[in-house]
């Protein structure tokens, strides 16, 4: 599904933010990415959701080499990835409903076909009555829920979430995690970056990836030699 081999990333001429990152994500698995603030979690996820090319090393996604991939093939890959950004990145002049519908519209889904799923998603995140509100008039937690709904609406093959529960209360956090889990059971590979230890313990079979000062520590060895491969 996703393969990183000896990946390094630097921003400009500074020292590398990420060094020698190697791992192999199995299809349909659930991963937590943890690490201190500034350890490089967001930077790693950016390469995962194709917002950043690595400075060195090999990244393979859905079986294809991304480093050498021409720019015009990237949109097709991005449509198979759902992203929850740490800073939400909702489009300010669009309503909650239109923000959530965005990935479907970009993918060319007709208005009749997307109305149902979007309304369903709005009720699932508890914002059916705020469907026409603009992001600026939503609370931080409500915006986060809209961002999550937008990431999952198109049933992506890979879901990447950067601190998706940072702004919601524990109950809502569990509810949202339940959404990720449901998606995961349908076959989506999920990568969630979080500080929240409680969250991690709630998902059975979830794997842990830990970043320390730009390096990936792999205490269980599960990443390099995933259980499925070791049998």
């Amino acid at each position: 599904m996703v393969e990183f081999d000896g990946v390094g990333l630097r921003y400009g001429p500074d020292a590398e933010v990420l060094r020698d990152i190697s791992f192999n994500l199995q299809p349909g698995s659930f991963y937590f990415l943890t690490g201190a603030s500034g350890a490089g979690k967001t930077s790693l996820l950016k390469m995962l959701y194709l917002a950043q090319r690595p400075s060195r090393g090999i990244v393979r996604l859905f079986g294809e080499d991304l480093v050498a991939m021409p720019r015009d093939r990237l949109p097709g890959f991005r449509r198979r990835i759902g992203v929850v950004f740490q800073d939400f990145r909702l489009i300010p002049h669009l309503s909650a409903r239109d923000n959530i519908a965005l990935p479907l519209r970009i993918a060319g889904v007709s208005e009749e076909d997307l109305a149902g799923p979007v309304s369903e998603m709005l009720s699932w995140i508890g914002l059916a009555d705020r469907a026409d509100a603009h992001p600026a008039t939503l609370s931080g937690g409500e915006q986060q829920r809209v961002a999550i709904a937008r990431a999952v609406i198109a049933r992506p093959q890979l879901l990447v979430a950067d601190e998706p529960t940072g702004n919601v209360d524990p109950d809502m956090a569990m509810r949202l995690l339940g959404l990720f889990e449901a998606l995961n059971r349908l076959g989506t590979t999920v990568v969630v970056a979080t500080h929240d230890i409680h969250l991690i313990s709630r998902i059975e079979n979830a794997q842990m990836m830990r970043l320390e000062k730009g390096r990936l520590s792999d205490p269980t060895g599960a990443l390099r030699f995933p259980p499925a491969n070791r049998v």
Partner: protein
Amino acid sequence: MLIPRVPVQHRRLLPDRRLSGPTPWVIAILMMLTLLAAAAGVGLARSADAIGSAIAGRVTVQIVTANPVTRAEQAAALRRAAAAQPFVLSARAVDRAELQATLGQWFGSDASGDGGGDPVLNSLPLPALVDIDFVGGDRSGHMAQLRALVAAEAPGARIIPHAEWLGPVARLIGSLAWIAAALVVLMTLASAAVVIMTARAALGTHYATIEMLHLIGATDRQITRLFQRRIAIDTAYGIALGTAVAAALLLLIGWQWAGITSGLAATASLGPTGWALLLALPLLAIALAALTARQTLLAALKKIL
């Protein structure tokens, strides 16, 4: 193609307020100036051509012999002899009444009739004039032959080629036409620059939205169409406004011009080609704006991963 079709739901990805700020107004002003310069250029080029071909082969022979009877005889003889020559297209003696009428305008006396009995005008020793148009071809040869003819029929008469004194005027008008053409080119470039700046500014303002659209899988084409549509519509408004004002001004000028100089109006009019060019300019401008916006947007988007 110029104003791309974008689904209604996608149009909302850009906020409703106008994208380009003062751009339509700037485009309107540039478009108006471009059209006025183009009209001036076409009009001037046509008059330069008309004057040029009218004067190229024409000379006036001025006979100043003191005795009025001899003078008139010489003029008549020269006219007859010249008209018989193969290199002369036409020869015409300018009659005295015509000369007096022209002079009368300068002296301020009644120009109608034969000097209106004005004693001053009647007493003036006016030269006899013969206008001669050459057939086309070897002008200096014709000139030499005419000189021999004049020496024989009216010794001492002066030959005045029209090109000598109207030529510089025609050349000046010709240069003005070229300057007008240069202005059209410069203003077209300025308009393109305005569109480029508008497109870049729009991308800058909406950078966050564009980045977001990219990351959820929008193609450069999708994003470009979105912006191109808005910029094309905004500039089309400016072009329409500029064209309307320029058209009003041109009609007004044409109307006044026709009123003042009924004789010369024909040479200064734009002609069918001129009008076709003026009508084509706004359409070309819309096409240029749309293509410029498109290229600017695609080039800028390529720099984002």
